[in-house]
């Protein structure tokens, strides 16, 4: 079953198109990662999907409901952690959790139980009596995310929830999210930290300039865009390595004036054979060898770079045709 289905979704502000005719579909019980550089259209898309703003065109279906027609019904079934901080400055941490549960009409016993559970899960016991105004930005972010779990929901939107969190709090949050997904929750997740997306997401979409430029599982994205691998060859001391490496031919090879040769190639097996042949022919001993798999970060950078080049090309052709 699809939890989120958007078709030809666009949002414009005057002449600026923040979201440009995107299609999205998120399956129930999955974690969907939504990545993109700053200003790519991630937050606008979340605001559209959570009914905060209306689309200029296109349709949005959330949990089987037309979001434009039944925004309140949709909002009763979803949770949203927005990118910007939100908190009640005068309330203590535990009171703000409790009041948030009350706002969602959660009965008082369940509220009490959940407050305790979330204070423990998000490591907030020590600051439970402190006012939101008196805690750090990272702690406030933890309270903001924890608060959203006070109520029941089928779909949770998390817009960069780990901003400001230390590595241990970040890992704790990601694991908590994974646990909730095992219980049936669906997550729509945006982040700038690509290791997080790789660790967490079942499927990833990359948006740039308001357009979706890639959608797939992390592994498939690596297969599609990450063919190029990095090979590092550690050698013994040798003279004139630069000249010797010219024998490698078409492959992109660099060395650090010392004992490490780095090679980037989509055709990594052939390249490795070639470099070993050259080294062997010159009596240079190989001491160590490693192949670094392509990270999601490299794929992200590649995909966005390609997209920027295309976008730049279009802009150039548009401006030349304007003339």
């Amino acid at each position: 079953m699809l939890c989120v289905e958007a078709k030809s979704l666009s949002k414009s502000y005057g002449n600026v198109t923040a979201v440009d005719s995107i299609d999205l579909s998120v399956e129930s019980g999955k974690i969907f990662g939504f990545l993109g550089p700053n200003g790519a259209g991630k937050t606008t898309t979340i605001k559209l999907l959570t009914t905060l703003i209306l689309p200029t065109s296109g349709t949005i279906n959330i949990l089987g409901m037309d979001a434009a027609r039944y925004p309140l019904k949709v909002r009763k079934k979803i949770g949203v952690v927005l990118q910007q901080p939100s908190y009640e400055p005068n309330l203590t941490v535990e009171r703000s959790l409790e009041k948030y549960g009350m706002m969602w009409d959660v009965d008082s016993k369940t509220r009490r139980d959940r407050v305790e559970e979330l204070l423990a899960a998000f490591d907030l016991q020590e600051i439970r009596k402190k006012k939101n105004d008196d805690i750090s930005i990272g702690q406030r972010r933890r309270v903001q995310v924890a608060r959203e779990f006070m109520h029941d929901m089928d779909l949770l939107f998390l817009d960069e929830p780990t901003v400001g969190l230390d590595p241990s709090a970040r890992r704790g949050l990601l694991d908590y999210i994974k646990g909730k997904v095992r219980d049936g929750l669906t997550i729509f997740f945006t982040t700038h930290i690509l290791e997080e997306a790789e660790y967490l997401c079942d499927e990833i979409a990359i948006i740039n300039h308001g357009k979706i430029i890639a959608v797939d599982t992390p592994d498939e994205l690596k297969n599609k865009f990450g063919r190029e691998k990095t090979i590092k060859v550690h050698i013994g001391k040798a003279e004139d390595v630069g000249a010797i490496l010219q024998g490698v031919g078409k492959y992109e090879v660099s060395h650090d004036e010392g004992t490490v040769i780095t090679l980037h190639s989509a055709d990594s097996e052939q390249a490795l054979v070639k470099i070993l042949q050259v080294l062997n022919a010159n009596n240079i001993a190989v001491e160590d060898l490693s192949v670094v798999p392509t990270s999601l970060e490299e794929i992200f950078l590649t995909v966005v770079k390609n997209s920027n080049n295309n976008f730049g090309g279009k802009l150039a052709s548009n401006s030349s045709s304007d003339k």
Partner: protein
Amino acid sequence: MEGNLHPIVRLINRNLTISLNMGFVIWQVIFPVIYIFVAGFAYTALIHNVPFGQKNLDYPAFISSGMIGFNIMNSTLISGIIIWNDRRHGMFEQILVGPFTRAQYILSNVYTIGIIGLVSAGLITAIGYPLFFKSVEFNILTVPLVVFASITGAILFGSIASIISTRLKSSEGFNVVINTVFLFFAFVSTAFYPAEGAPPILATAFYLNPLTYLVDVVRAGIFGNFTGTVAYEMVVLVAGAAVLFSIATKLLSKLEI
């Protein structure tokens, strides 16, 4: 797992929880008490009595009845502060992605200021009662006048505070504007002194101020002095509240996210 509370009731609960802190209670109780008991008796040496309808009120009775209207106005500052804080601390958007509509958010603010206005009026009536009990004429006609003035005044001043909160972004700007506007309302009114005997320009200025109408209706209710002028003032209050509430609602519903 769900309770059965209406969304507006839940929002009112939340509004009251975040608003009613020690600072606000001091502002709402200590400040008027000082005015009533210190200024009230101190000024008696200068102002022996104030003619009001068929009665002559002593100054403590006059000022304590005026403080009811003044306190209703002050309490409605809460409305602006709630909206402004919600925008500043991200709760406005958070509420609107929750199980609430904008209309419910706006109405919850109206009810919140109505409740705070009524409680405020009741509190000052209780505190001031020993001072004006000799002249008081509560009856089935006059008590509703005080309740009417409390609710209409709360909506009117709450709307003004809401309008200001939707237009200003910086905390300095918000504080300066709201304090200036409410200071003008407080002191250019009949809350502290009668219009009769004031210089004509000042007396005219008094009647450009909605607090004067609110205070006059409250006094009419307490001292049983319902006249044609009071009826006219009630109409002005209702009209003012309706217009300002419409503007506040329009601005709030168009507030960008």
